[in-house]
């Protein structure tokens, strides 16, 4: 007897076969099914709506171009999360390098325009009364090391289990647990003054 997961997997392999055959309707279905996951993951990492949308589009372009290389060892969702997190982290590194370069050129007077950090990120799904707290939390998440950031975002925003995160990051469950533990410790360190101030204004 088929379980729900087996049925989902069967549908997924049909979808992959259709994608490989170059069916436009299959690609549209894939985008409609997964754009929310891809966009929200990218948004939590790059913390900029336009850049997150650009990332999401690039993810689907890559899927379209490389679906032939996809080995069905992993689930499609796992593969999508892997492409999204890799692209988002690469984007952050590029942004950091551009900022460093603009600072350097401004020192030599070549280009006086210094790139600044983007303003505080306000997630569109945050209620008004939580905006300050969530904005502080997202700023702290942004300061985490890359691997910790990915593990934390996938667990607390995308609600992925430790095993699923391990598959996305191509590591072990214990490595993910360790990453999450360190991420939480770092966030606690960063956020303690904020919550203390809130308690005793």
């Amino acid at each position, binding site marked *: 007897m088929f379980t729900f997961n087996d049925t989902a997997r069967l549908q997924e392999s049909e979808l992959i076969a259709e994608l490989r055959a170059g069916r436009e309707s299959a690609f549209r279905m894939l*985008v409609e099914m997964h754009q929310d996951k891809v966009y*929200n993951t990218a948004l939590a990492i790059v913390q900029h709506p336009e850049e997150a*949308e650009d990332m999401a589009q690039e993810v689907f372009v890559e899927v*379209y171009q490389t679906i032939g290389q996809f080995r069905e060892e992993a689930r499609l969702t796992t593969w999508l999360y892997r492409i999204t997190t890799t692209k988002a982290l690469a984007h952050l590194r590029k942004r950091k390098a551009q900022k460093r370069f603009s600072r350097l050129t401004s020192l030599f007077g070549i280009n006086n325009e210094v790139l600044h950090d983007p303003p505080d990120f306000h997630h*569109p799904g945050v209620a008004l009364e939580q905006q300050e707290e969530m904005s502080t*939390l997202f700023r702290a998440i942004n300061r985490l090391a890359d691997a910790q950031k990915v593990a934390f975002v996938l667990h*607390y925003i995308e609600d992925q289990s430790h095993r699923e995160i391990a598959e996305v990051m191509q590591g072990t469950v214990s490595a993910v647990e360790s990453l999450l533990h360190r991420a*939480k410790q770092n966030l*606690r360190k960063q956020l303690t003054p904020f919550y203390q101030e809130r308690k005793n204004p």
Partner: protein
Amino acid sequence: MNRNSEDQPWEDRFRKLKKLDRAQPRPYFYTRLEARLKARIEQSEAAAVLPWWLQKPAYALGTLGLLIAMNVAVALWQNRPAVPETDPGTYEAFVQDYQLNHQNAFVDE
């Protein structure tokens, strides 16, 4: 205070992230994606026509620079001023060959 009661408030704070409303990309996401994909396909088709060394702007500019430099070099070489050669049958050539000067040549006369 034990460790669990210390951890719990933090866990609650982090779990608030799970309750956020999902963000949505701007409307017509798929239409924009389709346009991007089409442009990317056209770009890769155009690139397939060109040789590999012209697909990268740095190589293309380098090749162009090299061609210009070679043309300039050939043009300069072609238009160099001709060195006047002395006719071996003349008096001047005879003096030059035997390293004589006009004063010495007629000193014994």
